[in-house]
């Protein structure tokens, strides 16, 4: 399926860019008139994926994060967040709620949040090459009549 509208963003792996990334993505998606709740879900899911690239992918070091947002017919949105970091050895295990390789202040909830806030989460990863996370959500929006 061909996207009707797309947006690409390249940011440095710096924690200060986390809020910029989630606001920029939410702002692009605003053209679909999402509800406040839908926008909140998207902001939170994007924040999780971008933080993971910074914290795990690049281990707080230098690198680039590539974000592509596509809008399809029927208001379906995909958000791809990609890094060229260390990659994930076992994706299935990494996506289990509460699984974390960091401990300390990390709760292992990032993927669980992405999965519950979005309709679909796809992860591709190659050790030593990097990780891409694709988030998908259909925006029902504010103009859908609710009975």
């Amino acid at each position, binding site marked *: 399926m061909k996207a009707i509208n797309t947006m690409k963003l390249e940011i440095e792996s710096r924690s200060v860019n986390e*809020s910029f990334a*989630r606001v920029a993505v939410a702002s692009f998606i605003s053209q679909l008139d999402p509800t406040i709740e839908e926008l909140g*879900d998207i902001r939170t899911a994007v*924040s999780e994926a971008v933080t993971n690239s*910074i914290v795990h992918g690049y281990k707080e070091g230098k690198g680039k994060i590539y974000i592509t947002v596509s809008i399809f017919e029927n208001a379906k949105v995909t958000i791809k967040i990609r890094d060229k970091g260390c990659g994930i050895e076992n994706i299935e295990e990494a996506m289990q709620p509460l699984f974390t390789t960091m401990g300390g*202040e*990390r*709760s292992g909830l*990032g993927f669980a*949040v992405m999965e519950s806030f979005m309709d679909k989460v796809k992860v591709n990863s190659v050790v030593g090459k990097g990780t891409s996370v694709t988030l998908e959500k259909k925006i029902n929006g504010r103009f859908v009549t609710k009975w």
Partner: protein
Amino acid sequence: MKLEFSGGVLTAFIDGEIDHHTAPSIRETIDKTILQDKPDVLRLDYSGVTFMDSSGIGLIMGRYKLISSCSGKIEVINIPRNMAKVVKLSGIERLGRITIKED
């Protein structure tokens, strides 16, 4: 962030966004005060929080560990309604008194 200590209760009024970028300074301020004042209860007031992701949960779990090691209890109050979803998902309700803001 404002901190208040009275009657054995240390209350931290957290405001703004909690993410991986902002959490460390919030954490350091709270932990320093816990170790200094040795409160019986650490009360995190989330009423001024405008955004949080799993870092906001990590902040609660980390403070729970510290205050428990000092034999204290944790409370998280006034979590804005639109952040209740993350809280529910995390299951932190079993750590102490966790309340969502009524509005």
